């Protein structure tokens, strides 16, 4: 699970337990920095040994060989099914990564607790259709969704991106898809971060976020190039959050440059990212799902620069939102410091570029509420959430 998946899973858990004091949620993750998160009441977590993935350098180097890590993970997950006895299992992860692992867990759930429900949750856009179809076919994702899941939740909107059509879901799987809408970010108090940035509106705030951080280097690098070319003389205050999964060495280089510039706040990870998002005038990001949701929720102008070549889910998502006039997309080829600087300055000075405000009304943002209703339909009303009968 990446940072984005974990953040979403926590948002769902938090929403579920808020409405119901008898509901316990156990989050199972391999995120190394999970201990840094704030957990809502009735939510605890189990952390599995990590698996380093190719091109995923931001993750802590894993200690175990992949074989024994996988074995321990499978045993723990099966053990959790036997002892925690969930009534509902929600999979908030990429279906084609470590597909065999998840599919075995799902099969085990079916066998051990036949009445338990399983749901696969997907972001609005998973990737370019050709790539997704190929990897889903190779990893038997279609048959897993068909045989092992009760529902497929898409945290998006069918009108914006029809996953069933684009990813050629077979009839029975397409029938299980529920478009939940996007996940509204919670209202946040901003006093704490406002102390760190100048008071608006005299000085606008530009937030640059690298999401999880693994792919954020080119964007932050270009942004710093621009500030350096202007010797920091720009008509706004910048907040840079690189993301915790950025390699230490890359972060170190960026931080050293950031420290020489005025009117700049720099973090690798901030627990207060949402607060920053909600008091920014412009959000510049690599276009991850959660950043999009926050920009929509808080009505922010958004500039998306995925900084990776296609095929790429962020590019596709960026295009979908650009067509709606909700965001400005900067193609990887366009990502130069001059171009980025022009767009940021124009947006800040003249209010150029799309504002999330107008669009937020047409985009459904009630994903959490709709998921709550689906869960009630699947496992019964909250009062009836007795634990599944003990085994043996």
């Amino acid at each position, binding site marked *: 699970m990446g940072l984005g998946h974990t953040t979403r899973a926590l948002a769902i858990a938090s929403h579920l337990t808020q409405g119901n004091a008898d*509901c316990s949620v156990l989050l199972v993750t391999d995120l190394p920095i*999970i*201990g840094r998160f704030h957990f809502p009441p009735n*939510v605890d977590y*189990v952390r599995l040994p990590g698996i380093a993935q190719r091109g995923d350098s931001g993750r802590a180097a894993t*200690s*175990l060989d992949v074989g024994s890590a996988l074995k*321990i993970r499978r045993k723990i997950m099966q053990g*959790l099914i036997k002892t925690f006895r969930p009534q509902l299992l929600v999979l908030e992860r990429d279906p084609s990564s470590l597909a065999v692992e998840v599919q075995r867990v799902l099969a085990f759930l079916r066998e051990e607790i036949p009445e338990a429900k399983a749901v696969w949750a997907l972001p609005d856009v998973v990737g370019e259709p050709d790539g997704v179809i190929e990897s889903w076919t190779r990893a038997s994702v279609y048959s897993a969704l068909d045989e092992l899941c009760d529902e497929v939740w898409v945290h998006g909107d069918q009108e914006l991106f029809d996953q069933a059509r684009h990813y050629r879901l077979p009839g029975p799987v397409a029938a299980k898809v529920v478009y939940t809408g996007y996940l509204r970010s919670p209202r946040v108090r901003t006093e704490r971060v406002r102390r760190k940035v100048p008071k608006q509106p005299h000085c606008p705030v530009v937030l640059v976020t690298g999401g999880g951080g693994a792919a954020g280097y080119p964007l932050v690098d270009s942004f710093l190039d621009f500030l350096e070319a202007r010797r920091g003389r720009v008509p706004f205050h910048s907040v840079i959050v690189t993301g915790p999964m950025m390699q230490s060495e890359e972060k170190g280089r960026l931080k050293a440059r950031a420290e020489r510039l005025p009117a700049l706040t720099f973090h690798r990870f901030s627990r207060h990212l949402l607060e920053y998002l909600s008091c920014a005038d412009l959000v510049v990001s690599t276009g991850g799902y959660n950043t999009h949701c926050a920009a929509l929720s808080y009505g922010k102008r958004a500039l998306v620069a995925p900084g990776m070549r296609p095929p790429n889910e962020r590019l596709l998502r960026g295009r979908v939102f650009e067509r709606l006039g909700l965001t400005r997309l900067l193609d990887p080829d366009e990502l130069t410091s001059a171009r980025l600087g022009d767009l940021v300055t124009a947006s800040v000075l003249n209010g150029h570029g799309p504002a999330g405000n107008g669009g937020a009304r047409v985009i459904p943002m009630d994903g959490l509420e709709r998921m709550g209703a689906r869960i009630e339909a699947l496992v019964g009303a909250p009062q009836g959430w007795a634990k599944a009968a003990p085994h043996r």
Partner: protein
Amino acid sequence: MKGRSALRIMVYSQDGFGLGHLRRNLNIAIQVQRQVPHSVILIVADSPAAPFFRLPPRCDFVKIPTLVKVNTGVWSSDRLRLVNEELLAIRSEIMEDVATGFRPHLVLVDHMPNGVAGELTKPLQTLREHARRAKIVLGLRDILGARADICKQWLADGAYEAAEAYYDRILVYGCAELFDLAAEYQFSADLVAKTIYCGYVSREHIPPAGPTSRPPERPPFVLVTGGGGADSSFFMDRFLDALRLVGSETRCRAILAVGPFLHREQYRLLARKARGLPVRLSRLGQDGIRLLRRADVVISMAGYNTISEVMRFRKKAIVIPRPGPSAEQTMRTSVLAARGLFEVIHPHHLTPETLAAALAERISATSMVDERDLPPLNGASRAAAQMLAEVRA
């Protein structure tokens, strides 16, 4: 240990809310890896803040659902709406899964021979049945608590039987001349024979500070540290009062390392009270070893890790032991203060005046600790060496 396969060590670190046990286990793990470079260490922890510390390479962790100690022998789920039996079953299951999946050559269990309420019994049995060559080692800090409390609890928990039945070795991270743990807690002859004292465990991988290079015009630096921070605000508060009392002849600047667990509201109160004083607040707490190395005077509670590091870095210290519920800290301070290793203020005598007087005295004191009075402080590397000797035996 099999020929060429890497040495695998599993560590059980039960912390509940804090991080002290995890920190100590990590200090030992790092020394194991220094002695056997390709060893692989898997830590099973239950602190909600795990891992918190940066883990060395080839060291990973599993976090199990958290149980918090409510009182001696009384535990409760921190978050999940489950009864204790259910939560213990989950924890026990995960530990068994890790034991059978990881197939460790050695298991190090921290301070509870059969875990919380016997949760380790089944995993240990499984290990004994299926991995006969695996060595199982119990690690105990220098002092566990008052004799009556600990003996009663160990009897009730079946900890003595577990220690006899499952363990190859008991390592005490302390010094028998200071505190004979085996005698104090009435170990049987069998347990006494298994027990080895290793000395105090600290971050041996961090070199001790060189001679202080503070220029004479710079005021001395006082570090006030509260470990994890959950219950340290009372003496932080007194310290701020004390600082207003000390005369102008006692110049100093201070950092309050309040720790990650200090409640937000208490943090704000302290920050407000510190206004106008030469004091800065830091959330680093126990992990702020750079602060400790630089400090001229340390004011702290008497948690194991802090005391070990105060001794290792030869710091002039004022120690305020946590009064309860366990007698551990008062016992530790009385044993070590008898050797003149630091100044002690009992919490009942803690007033701004007593603290101010002690502070002025410590700042002006020039006498360094007499090396001969220090207990052995290479506990991490000795514990690591003992564990490796077990595996090779």
